[in-house]
């Protein structure tokens, strides 16, 4: 009869149980207002990068 292989589990201790410190994910730390502000800022960031002037692209560097 084959013996079942024993595989050890990752030797990491379990997190501490502290009331009020259980998170559902990193973003659960943020309020709705904070999330809205960040979303707006990141959209603005994208928009700014898209506005890179066509003039820069054709500058000749020598």
């Amino acid at each position: 009869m084959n013996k079942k292989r024993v595989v050890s589990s990752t030797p990491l201790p379990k997190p501490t149980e502290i009331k009020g410190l259980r998170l559902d994910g990193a973003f659960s730390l943020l309020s709705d207002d904070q999330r809205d502000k960040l979303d707006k800022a990141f959209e603005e960031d994208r928009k700014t990068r898209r506005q890179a002037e066509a003039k820069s692209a054709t500058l000749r560097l020598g």
Partner: protein
Amino acid sequence: MDVAAWESPDPGEVRVLGSQADWDQLASEYENLLAENLPGGRMGPHMRPFRRCLEVAQEGGASSVVVETRYIDVDYRSEFSAHYSRSFRTPPATARRLHFFRAPLRPEQLWDLPTDAGYLGYMVLRPVPLGPVGRTMLRPPPGMEPAVRTMVTDYATVFGQRFEIAAVPFMQQDAQFDRCAHAAAWVCHYTAFRRQEVSRRSMGAFSLSADPSLGFGRPVPSDGLTVLQLLEILRLFDLPCQFYDIENLPSVAPGPGTPPDPAPQRPDPAGMWDTRIISICCRYLNSGVPVLVGNEEHAWVLCGYQRHARASGSDWIRFVRHDDQRGPYLWVDDVLNDVAGGYTYSPWRWLIVPLPDKLWLVPEPAEGMAAALLPSLAQRVVSAVPGSAAQTLLDKAARGELRWRTYARLANDFKAELVGRVDPIVLREYRMARLSRFVWVVEAIDRAGRQSGSQDVVLGEAVFDGTSNGLRPQPMALRVPGVIYLFPPDGSVRGPLICSPDSSRSGGVGPA
């Protein structure tokens, strides 16, 4: 040029550089040798990089130079094959290489050099009078060394003897086949090559690979590269670039410790007032990544910076520049009014950052997200456990003493560099975590501690997935004083884990 003169003494020589007169003689000998090939016979400004390289070696304490004649240099050979071999007056096909040592060496030691001779690096010289300095790896001058952040390690074999050198690569344009943009791109690429991120590309390949449809005029002789050509060459050579138009710089989302955007001072161009240039460059230099900068006509490379604390107002930053027309390791005293060495660099117009392919996330959104998450986490911890050490971060934020330091690292380097920097629990958790190949790390810095000269100034950090989206930078770990959380890719949460409440040393490259 007389090939026999260029290639002798064969195979090389050692010269003592014991006095200023020895250095002057070395410089003038090379000027005369190269000027033979120049109509009119005067070298002018084209020797400035050569003289600056000598200055760097001299400041480093060199007292002897070993000259390899008839040196077969990959970069010069590529230029020779593609260009000089086709010219009517063909220069020699070989280069020279000068190796600088602190120790005074004797000719009979050439084949048995002492291993502790104090190797300071090398400079390749092309037999091209309008652009003699080829691939160069010279140790930064002593006073500047802590500021230089993009150094890589290279090895040179001197008559069968291997020496190691840590330096920022430098090369001068030859003013015909390659120009400042080629030289600046080569500096960034050779840096990435020495880090084993990309394969080696010779200088000739930079000229031959420029897409003519993205520029003007004839590719050879080159009048320079357009920004689009520069971006395309680096993409082709496996270093896709992040581009910043200085007239349209991104902001970091407002949060505690995030400086407000500067008020525009129009009609001045943004390069004269927009201080965001500084923080953007610092994020990449903290990562050890060189930043290619340009104005309307010229390109150069930033390879470091030094912070000067000021009692009132924000700190002042001095950058370190490699300018192919002036030489390596030159201070940039004022980014917004950049005049140096008789040339007006201001206003800067754009920044190009060649990056490894798998670093997709840009740093500004990551920094904004960290500035929101870390104080929120500290607040949550303090609410759950009143009086806990996380209060320190909130207090610093309330007093305006919080700053953010952002850098990218290979996850493996980030893990390796934790030893002696963080407490054993943080080390265990980060090392056992599954992280993306590259990570962005945003550290919460105790500004007062930094100003007082303390090394332990990191109150906590957020570690981001380098492949996450700039619209929602994904944290993989958050740490505030005393508590750490990890967010594995399966969506689970590991934490809270109790760790040391003490501040730690900063990661990334160079001082915080």
